[in-house]
């Protein structure tokens, strides 16, 4: 069965930040909320690599496991979504998330967090597809239009791949074979092979 995943090919990522602005543009994500970001490791050194990262829509997602109000859920495409109506802004998902995906607006000057916001794989949320409520809370639902997350669709060097895990894994493997090297799919082990699962 299809299982949606993200894969960032660090050999191709040039830190152009298209994924970041495309996401912001598509979902009108406000200043300070970064559903997706590009992290550069070893900045300025020969080993430098940039990796675009957002919610990886983990298997056995730890955020879902720790949410005290069960506001996060995973659908049968593997996409991890959440309900902003239920979220209480406790921050547990942020502690559990291996990729720093959950983001919080500030709810008050008392330091508390507002409703969690994160990458939806451009699949909206629990509201009715294409409804105004869905758009306002979660952004566009591209998946329901048969489109992939915009970040991957616009990636300038096709470094960021999204879609069926087997297919994007295949695209990546072909590249590795052709160029003869690859530094591995960053985050896949953590995201898709869970705690101690799947070997």
């Amino acid at each position, binding site marked *: 069965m*299809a*299982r949606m995943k993200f894969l960032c090919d660090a050999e191709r990522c040039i830190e152009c930040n298209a994924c970041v602005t495309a996401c912001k543009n598509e979902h009108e994500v406000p200043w*300070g909320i*970064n559903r997706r970001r*590009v*992290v*550069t*490791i070893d900045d300025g050194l020969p080993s430098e690599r940039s990796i675009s*990262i957002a919610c990886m829509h983990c*298997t056995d997602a*730890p955020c879902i*496991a*720790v949410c*005290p*109000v*069960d*506001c996060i*859920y995973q*659908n*049968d495409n*593997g996409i991890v979504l959440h*309900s902003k*109506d*239920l979220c*209480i*802004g*406790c*921050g*547990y998902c942020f*502690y559990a998330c*291996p*990729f720093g995906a959950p983001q919080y607006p500030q709810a008050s000057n*008392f*330091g*508390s967090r507002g409703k969690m916001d994160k990458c939806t794989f451009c699949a909206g949320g*629990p509201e009715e*597809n*294409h409804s105004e409520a869905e758009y306002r809370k979660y952004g566009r*639902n591209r*998946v*329901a239009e*048969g489109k992939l997350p915009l970040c991957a*669709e616009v990636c300038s060097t*096709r470094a960021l*791949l999204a*879609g*069926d*895990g*087997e*297919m*994007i894994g295949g695209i990546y*493997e072909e590249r590795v074979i052709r160029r003869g090297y690859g530094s591995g*799919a960053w*985050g*896949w*082990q*953590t995201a898709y092979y*869970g705690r101690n699962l*799947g*070997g």
Partner: protein
Amino acid sequence: MKTTSDRLSGYRIAGAVAALLLAILLGWTLYESTGTEQLVLPTNGVLHGARDDVPSDAAAAEALRERTALQAWRGEAGPSPAAAAEPAVTGQAMGGGTDETGAAALVASWLGSRDENWEMIRERGFLEGRVTQPAEFLSVLEQPQGRTWRGLHNEEIVFGGGIVIFGFSLLLALFLAWRGRVPVEEGFSGERVQRFSGFERANHWVTAGSFVLIALTGLLLLYGQYLLKPLLGAGIYHSWALVGAWIHMIFAVPFVIGVAVMVVMWIRQNGPSKLDVEWLKRFGGFLPGSEGHPPARRFNTGQKLIFWAVVLGAIALLVTGLSLMFPFFWLEITGMQLAQLIHAGVGLVMIAIIIGHIYIGTVGMEGAFDAMWRGDVDRNWAKEHHSIWLAEKQGGRRQTH
């Protein structure tokens, strides 16, 4: 000398019943804790549990596969597939729904393909780099310990809390069943001795009330999803949790102030002394057959222990709690995870200790409750538990008269 059991066997029976209940709860907790944590299963819904009327996007999967192919296409050669310009519009509700067995099989299939793409696997590790946005926390690329934190939180803390609270309560209940209520051995004299001023009592109750609210809301956040949500439903439970989270934070203020006032008022009377050694040796004279109670000043060793547990616990909760309320103010992600675990752990132990404190101040000991409620105690009670204090107080009173 009359035994307590003769006098108030009702307490002993209640103690035995409570002990039985707590033993069952503890056993249940221990049993639950032996299983491994369940995999997260897809539900296709969240507001009211698993749903099959929510579009699952499963119907979109095929369209998405086509779209994924576009990401490989054209890196190769040749013209574009004409279809690329107009994506299919899909997204119908999926039929059937996901039952738990199906969902478990689905997750199993997701996990099953690891061997097929082992080449793509990088070793997991904590990775931090640079981001251009001025928010340092974004620079952590990967922190696989999040999954470890999830395990510690969902197992060690959740079950550990149950074991500590139920276990300690069970001990108290057993003690009650065995020893009964600690009596005022000489009986009530009818003469009252002022023990706590109005200010001291007010402060105590503010602190205590805050603590109870904080503790209950803390428990609500930790256990509510298992214990209450099934009863209330997601929507109502969410409101409770939201209000609970706010109560938890807001009442931290009076609690901390109350503890601070206690420290100012009582710290000198809670210093250790030689008497404490004696008191501990004789276990405060609570055990049956002990010859009276050991001498004590205003606070005996048991009360001192409560005092210091509260003070140190409050400091720990305050520091960790603030660092959770103000993320990244002084802690990075690892520190925050640790802070959360400490906060929850200390909180749970505090709850157990305070249960003990409440027990001994109410059911566990005759005449004790008056001290904090009315502010004065019976002279005989004072003589038994705070003999030196009483002596000094009476001496003092004589001098003033």
